[in-house]
């Protein structure tokens, strides 16, 4: 066991059982999965992406490239999780990945043998023959080999939520800088949200010995913040992305104490934090070193070794080599030595500072200057290391190598909004560029690596952030408070007297001091792969090859080698790759540039982004007031837009094709009742309402008498038909407009647009009243009788209520409007009742109408009835047709001035080949027409786009024939001409004759009578 019985922030009284690859192990409350696995002597955690090399635990944080595991079982499986970020929970089941049959013996590790042929981009150069579909053959195997974990096909059983949060000041990262910033802003009076990805606040302070001064300072700060009602500390919460408008995307994890969430408990919650100002205290990430076999289990970041020791009480190795080019790794070495390890430091610098050396000496550590690792030795765990030094090569036995190539500020979030990081030569690192308004940085992310500086910096940034979001209050009182002091004794004292987090600048770019594998084609020193991107298996020689082949821009490098494309987004590899390419090209690092950092900072589950918006909650349903009646009367419901509408009623037939014909027949022979509440309805009011309608419709409304309705057509500005509907003048200055169901919102917005932007001088008010009215249509020869029976107080005679007439009344003390309109060609009435009593009105009509044969009908029959009557609808008003195309030009009889008029006369719109509306009648017995059939002349070659198409069809029980509407080239569209309707999907070719689109009652006697 590597677990010590002292040190750490784990609770040794609370053991936690978990399994890894089926083997039961025990950790403690406060462990990460990685620390618990290390404590259980697990060295190999998975196999690598390309070469299937054994990999262990490399870091102690979200930068982990290696230790990816699958957590959970069944629908709860989650692949590719870094064990370093998984909080240990009771019953947790972890599995290694990308190995078969077992982690220790993996068949595909044979890939390593072929690795000479698997260099960067090899797949672009082969698999192209022998035939043009060969790739599909190779791809099958390549796909199987690629990918890391396996995803289930079952639905995710877990629950996710999305919530909206607000803050004056958001602070990202609860390390020393973040804690200080939060306290400063909170003391000043700001509402503060402090976000920490870990399950404990403290950042790097957690890696300091817990009994020391860091622990006390941290505890003090947390206690103060906990007492402040205006501070919310969110641990287990990652700020994964920075978005416009100072919006942070947060991901909160919940399942801390148990593996599976309780019933109804969210596994993760997406938080959308809208902050007036943001302080980024995102810290820094240690850089690895590059040498042969630098991926072997037992090699990890020096800071990680320190974290496992001080935070988790796990001594990751007994014979430790710490390799570094900077001061900070000494603190790891000293702590490891103090815990009983035998430690050697290989420092690539010629003269580490005397204070450092003194500290090391006192800790019993051997320091070898001008010493670099050439190669690690060992398979499943490192056994020894070969150092190159001025005197030559030396081999040292060891079971742990801690590496440190300096520190990279975590600039990801500050770059998400397109602010390029800026390179600082003095610290050889990128720091955030100039951020936008309301965004501040503090601590190690700025490139100042000492704890004291972080605290002071955080304090300053917290005050500035508060001042930004509340300038008024801030100027009144720049709140002074006693920030707990943290003195310079923290960590190892470097030669400049500062604490140990500061890396000394390397003597030369990192790659050249620590690269033994070929840069610029010079291979050798040591055989073995030197990895730059551990997760994507990108090696130093891959970078050299990319350079050799001309993939030299940073983006080309990334894309050609797949560098940085893994789940860790290259958090540990980017800088090295950049400096390597700079070296190869002989350029300075900033001239090579940097890749763009993209959200999310760490991967975010798709489900968390969706929250509860899936399944039947994906989009809200719109229900008409009569919805429940339809459902309880066995209607087959169909979605149109968000509305649920009756498609047909099962009482008519179980089969839609039989049902709609039965429902049509009933309308033509007796009467039918249809729920048309989904129509858009708009109240247009004001002294200029009529003038306004004259402008938006192609036809005139100014002279429409009060109490009368008129069919109207609107165009888009480009002259294409936008929508149609009827508008009724319910008062001198008050019109009641209806629109199609589909276009309701667009029409409303368009009317408001015209009034607000183009014609603000018109005194017109428009209001959506779609939801105000339950609407139903009674159609059929018996409709008047039914109406009279249902509303005996109203005079619905032909004189009192003629076609296109309006009757207003009250129903159950709610407004009632009856407008005599016909879509079906039958005598028909649209009844508008207050929505709150819509269902009662509907039932009353059903009750009154049943003796007359009234039955409900659905939208399938509605569509068929209107086809029989030759009314255009959605399939014809398809966003490409003009007034002329639809035979509606005669409506535009006005002198001028309607929307779309000018562009509606564009040249192509009068092209003789342009399709226009026709009626079609099937002339073959026993066969049918279908919408979507393409029309050709008989004997014409059947290819191309034809002369037109059928848009809508129906069987007409009245004519006992299949009829349809179509759009057919004007030059060909003579009545009586015959065409073949081709429907290749069914291999059909059916003869159809061009007829008038009005199949029934051309004079309109039925609806006028």
């Amino acid at each position, binding site marked *: 066991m590597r677990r010590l019985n002292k040190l750490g922030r784990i609770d040794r009284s609370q053991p936690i059982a978990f399994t890894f690859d089926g083997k039961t192990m025990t950790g403690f409350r406060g462990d990460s999965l990685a620390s618990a696995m290390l404590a259980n002597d697990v060295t190999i955690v998975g196999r690598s992406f390309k070469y299937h090399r054994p990999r262990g635990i490399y870091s102690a944080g979200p930068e982990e490239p290696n230790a990816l595991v699958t957590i959970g079982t069944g629908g709860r499986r989650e692949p590719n999780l870094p064990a370093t970020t998984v909080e240990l929970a009771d019953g947790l089941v972890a599995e290694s990945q990308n190995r078969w049959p077992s982690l220790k013996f993996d068949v595909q590790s044979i890939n390593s043998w072929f690795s000479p042929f698997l260099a960067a981009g090899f797949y672009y150069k082969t698999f192209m023959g022998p035939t043009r579909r060969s790739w599909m053959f190779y791809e099958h195997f390549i796909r199987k080999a690629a990918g890391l974990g396996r995803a289930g096909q079952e639905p995710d059983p877990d629950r996710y939520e999305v*919530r*909206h949060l607000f803050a004056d000041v958001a602070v990202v990262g609860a390390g020393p800088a973040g804690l200080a910033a939060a306290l400063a802003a909170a003391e000043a009076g700001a509402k503060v949200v402090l976000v920490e990805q870990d399950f404990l606040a403290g950042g790097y302070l957690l890696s300091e010995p817990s009994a020391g001064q860091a622990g006390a300072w941290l505890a003090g700060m947390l206690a103060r913040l906990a007492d402040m009602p205006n501070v919310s500390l969110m641990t287990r919460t990652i700020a994964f992305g920075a978005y416009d408008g100072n919006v942070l995307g947060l991901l909160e994890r919940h399942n801390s104490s148990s593996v599976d969430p309780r019933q109804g408990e969210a596994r993760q919650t997406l938080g959308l934090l809208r902050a007036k100002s943001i302080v980024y205290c995102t810290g820094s990430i240690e850089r690895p070193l590059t040498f042969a076999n630098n991926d072997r289990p037992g090699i990890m970041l020096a800071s990680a070794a320190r974290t496992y020791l001080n935070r988790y009480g796990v001594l990751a190795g007994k014979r430790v080599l710490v390799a570094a080019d900077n001061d900070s790794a000494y603190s790891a070495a000293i702590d490891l030595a103090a815990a009983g390890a035998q430690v050697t430091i290989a420092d690539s610098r010629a003269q580490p500072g005397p204070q450092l050396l003194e500290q090391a000496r006192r800790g019993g550590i051997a320091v070898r200057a001008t010493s670099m690792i050439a190669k690690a030795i060992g398979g499943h765990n490192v056994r020894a290391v070969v150092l190159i030094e001025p005197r030559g090569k030396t081999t040292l036995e060891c079971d742990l190598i801690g590496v440190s190539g300096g520190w990279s500020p975590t600039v990801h979030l500050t770059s998400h909004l397109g602010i390029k990081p800026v390179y600082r030569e003095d610290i050889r690192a990128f720091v955030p560029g100039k951020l936008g308004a309301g965004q501040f940085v503090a601590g190690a992310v700025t490139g100042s690596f000492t704890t004291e500086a972080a605290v002071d910096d955080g304090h300053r940034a917290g005050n500035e952030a508060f001042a930004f979001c509340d300038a008024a209050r801030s100027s009144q009182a720049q709140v002074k408070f006693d920030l707990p002091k943290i003195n310079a004794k923290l960590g190892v004292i470097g030669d400049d007297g500062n604490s140990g987090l500061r890396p000394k600048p390397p003597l030369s770019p990192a790659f050249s001091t620590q690269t033994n594998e070929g840069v610029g084609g010079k291979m050798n020193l040591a055989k073995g792969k030197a990895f730059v991107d551990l997760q994507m298996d990108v090696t130093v020689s891959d970078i050299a090859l990319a350079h050799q082949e001309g993939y030299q821009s940073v983006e080309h490098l990334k894309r050609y080698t797949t560098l940085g494309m893994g789940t860790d987004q290259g958090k540990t590899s980017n800088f090295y790759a950049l400096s390597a390419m700079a070296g190869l090209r002989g350029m300075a690092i900033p001239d090579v540039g940097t890749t763009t950092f993209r959200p999310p900072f760490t991967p975010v589950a798709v489900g968390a982004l969706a929250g509860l918006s899936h399944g039947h909650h994906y989009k809200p*349903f719109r229900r008409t007031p009569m919805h429940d009646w339809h459902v309880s009367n066995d209607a087959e419901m169909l979605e149109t837009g968000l509305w649920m509408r009756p498609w047909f009623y099962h009482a008519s037939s179980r089969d839609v094709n039989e049902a709609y014909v039965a429902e049509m027949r009933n309308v033509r022979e007796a009467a039918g009742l249809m729920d048309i509440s989904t129509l858009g309805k708009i109240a247009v009011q004001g002294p200029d309402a009529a003038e306004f309608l004259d402008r938006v419709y192609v036809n005139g409304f100014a002279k429409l008498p009060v109490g009368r309705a008129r069919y109207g057509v609107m165009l888009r500005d480009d002259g294409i038909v936008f929508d149609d509907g009827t508008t009724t003048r319910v008062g001198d200055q008050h019109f009641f407009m209806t629109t199609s169901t589909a276009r309701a919102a667009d029409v409303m917005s368009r009317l408001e647009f015209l009034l607000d932007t183009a014609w603000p001088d018109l005194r017109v008010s428009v209001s959506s009243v779609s939801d105000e009215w339950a609407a139903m249509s009674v159609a059929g020869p018996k409709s008047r009788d039914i109406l009279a029976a249902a509303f005996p107080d109203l005079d619905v005679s032909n004189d009192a209520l003629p076609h296109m007439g309006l009757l207003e009344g009250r129903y159950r003390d709610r407004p009632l409007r009856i407008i005599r309109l016909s879509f079906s060609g039958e005598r028909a009435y649209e009844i508008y009742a207050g929505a709150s009593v819509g269902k009662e009105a509907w039932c009353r009509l059903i009750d009154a109408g049943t003796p007359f044969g009234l039955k409900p009908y659905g939208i399938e029959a509605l569509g068929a009835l209107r086809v029989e009557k030759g009314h255009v609808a959605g399939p014809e008003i398809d966003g490409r047709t003009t007034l002329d195309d639809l035979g509606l030009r005669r409506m535009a009889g006005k002198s001028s001035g309607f929307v779309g008029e000018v562009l509606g006369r564009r040249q192509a719109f009068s092209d003789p080949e342009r399709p226009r509306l026709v009626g079609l009648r099937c002339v073959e017995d026993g066969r049918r027409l279908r919408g979507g059939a393409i029309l050709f002349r008989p004997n014409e070659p059947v290819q191309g786009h034809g002369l037109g198409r059928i848009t809508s069809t129906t069987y007409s029980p009245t004519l006992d024939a299949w009829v349809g509407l179509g759009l057919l080239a004007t030059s060909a569209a003579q009545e009586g001409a015959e065409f073949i309707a081709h429907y290749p999907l069914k291999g059909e070719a059916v003869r159809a004759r061009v007829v008038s689109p009005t199949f029934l009652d051309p004079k309109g006697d039925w609806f006028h009578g």
Partner: protein
Amino acid sequence: MANGSEQANLGIASQDCGIVQFDGWDDAMARFEADLAPRLGGQLPTKVGDTTYQDGKLVIRIAPRRLWLLCDGPPPAIDIDPELGCMLALGEGRVRLRLSGQNIKHVLERCVVVDWDSLQEGEGVQVGFHRVPVLLLRTGPFECDLFAPRSFARSLVEWISEVEIGCRHTGP
């Protein structure tokens, strides 16, 4: 901290609500408001979202030139000079959902983008809820009214109920 479901519940009541809308013409707003104010109880709310409550009449400004009179009973008859503006009864199209409970903030932050802490009692905010426009009116420390389009109301209630299940675990 609420502990468990018994405390952490949320009451949802649904009722109809009379709304009368008043629109003033751009060039006649001062006269329009002077004309209307006494008939709606005296003062009119000046800012969008503000409310006045006088003589049992709750008035909210919905847009710069638009006011809503919210009433539980039948709306009063008020004539508007057509030269000044117009009125429209909107009592049928919206459902008033009365939400109350200790958990209200946690429910609302999963429904709407509204900073509940800075919303004053008597203040209204028009906002999208699951992409549906609603009017949220804060009526107390743990209470609000949501005016939702009638056609969407049931779906929104289902959403609130779903959200509330989760809140039982997290507590306020």
